[in-house]
């Protein structure tokens, strides 16, 4: 089969885990995203970059069906998780969101729950059960590199943590559901540089056995954490689209498109 995109099983040498085919998005009558074809290989990190309003945050929300919660939002095209369209009739969006976790821009742990309660919140919310909750809490917090800082105060309220710790708690909370894919929408934009580095280390470590898609405004961050990068652009009220996608190294050092080159070298955006 011919590859739709530079990020493919061929160019990267890994199986495609998640892919999109001709994804379009509308808010009411407004066409905001046009014909996005991307492929996310297994256990890799893909960065979505581009200026504000280019549709990258909108796009990441189509990957776990969070997009459809926005009133008047419409979508065309296919999002395939291991070959199966997550928008197909009969697919439960709740199951999709359990398989494809999400971390948001602003750390948003549940303020009424303890640290432990936050890690287990996905189980409670989705009605799933775990045979060993203590082990799940420890493993999830370990994976999010937070365990050593909170192991003695698991029953403290989540609000007692610092911003960076809260964001790692949100990562732990998503990991507790053992998702296949983790989506991160500008996870460090509300954090200080020190916390950002910790989160980036966490992303590197979880991507050893998980596919990660991260939206970022920070081009250094994209280069530090990702193997692939897709550059989104929206021009003059036209819908956003992918200008260029490929290995991160190529996008930043050997871009094929002039607009990509201008953006990554800081000439606009």
């Amino acid at each position, binding site marked *: 089969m011919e590859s739709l995109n530079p990020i493919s099983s061929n160019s990267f040498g890994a199986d495609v885990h998640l892919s999109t085919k001709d994804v379009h998005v509308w808010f009411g009558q407004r066409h905001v995203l046009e014909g996005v074809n991307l492929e996310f290989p297994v256990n890799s990190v893909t960065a979505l970059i581009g200026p504000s309003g280019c549709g990258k945050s909108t796009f990441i929300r189509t990957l776990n069906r969070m997009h459809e919660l926005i009133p*008047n939002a419409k979508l065309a095209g296919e999002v395939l998780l291991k070959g199966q369209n997550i928008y197909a009739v009969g697919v439960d969006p709740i*199951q999709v969101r359990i398989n494809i976790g999400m971390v948001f821009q602003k750390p948003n742990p*549940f303020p009424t729950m303890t640290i432990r309660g936050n890690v287990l*919140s996905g189980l409670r919310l989705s*009605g799933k059960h775990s045979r060993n909750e203590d082990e799940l809490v420890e493993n999830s917090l370990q994976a999010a590199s937070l365990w050593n800082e909170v192991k003695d105060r698991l029953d403290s309220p989540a609000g007692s943590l610092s911003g960076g710790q809260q964001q790692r708690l949100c990562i732990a909370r998503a990991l507790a559901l053992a998702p296949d894919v983790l989506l991160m929408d500008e996870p460090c934009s509300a954090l200080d540089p020190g916390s950002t580095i910790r989160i980036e280390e966490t992303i590197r470590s979880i991507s050893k056995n998980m596919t990660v898609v991260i939206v970022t405004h920070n081009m250094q961050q994209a280069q530090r954490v990702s193997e692939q990068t897709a550059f989104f652009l929206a021009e003059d009220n036209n819908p956003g689209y992918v200008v260029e996608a490929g290995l991160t190294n190529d996008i930043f050092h050997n871009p094929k498109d002039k607009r990509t080159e201008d953006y990554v070298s800081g000439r606009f955006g």
Partner: protein
Amino acid sequence: MAKSQESFDLVDLKLKVSGRGDRLFFGFSSVAAYFAFSLVFLIVIFLGNASFSTFKTQGLAFFTGSTWDDAAGVYQIFPMLVGSVLCSILGLLISAPISIAIAYFIEFMAPPRLAKALTNIVDLLAALPSIVIAIWGAFVFAPVAAQWAQIINNKLGFIPGLQNTSGTFVGSPFIAGWILAIMMTPIITSVCREIIGSVDKDLVSAALALGGTRFSTMRRVVIPTARGGITGGILLGLGRGLGETIAVLYVLNLVFIVNFNILENYGGSVAPMIAAYYGESSEVGVSALLAAGVALFLITLFVNLIAQIFVGRYEKKMAS
């Protein structure tokens, strides 16, 4: 060098009045404010003065006894107090879940236009005059609710509180509770709507992204976060129910016997009792009715105070 803050002349802007229009408006506002304040003060004095003799002659039995005999000069309101609380709690049991559900639907599920329409419709319900609900309740709703009551009694009559020995199902606290629920729903909904609306939308997104359903998101995240404010809203509804007069008067069969069987065909409630007896009471009787009013006022005041503490504490928490 910039002047240090202490060296500025501080001007009290609140009291600075200039120009004739301003002075007139200021004068009018002050008079209105002082008038309202004095009016409340005078009403309290009047109530205290008028009811004092009753409290003095009846003693504690005024609150704990079950006889009201104007001719004999015995005035006791225990069944009415119990009834007020019972009917209002019944009303809350019905209206609180409905109100929370409406509020959640408006804030999180309805498309904007429907949300706006629903908000207006629920507020309109609050604008319906009590007498309209009273007449509708007595002639349209009561016969229907009496049938529901009969069905409940048939199936669950063995449970204490759901018994009925009279065989008649109209005039019961059950029906009064439903009518109160209709009157409480708008106020509880409007408080809950604002409180639920102030819950961080990011938390809702987070819950849904973790595989939450609409219901589990509401139960595990939205309601716990908004708990204090919702409690306040429910207590405001309770205050509304305790004070309701005419609508309960039309649907409840007032009898001076303590009744906890909600399907039985009689009950009590302080406010409608005052309205019912006012016209045919002696001078001493009227004083006793006013004393009953004072008792109800104190209960309502207490409930509202607690409600304000809850709502206030919630708003403070949200602001921080």
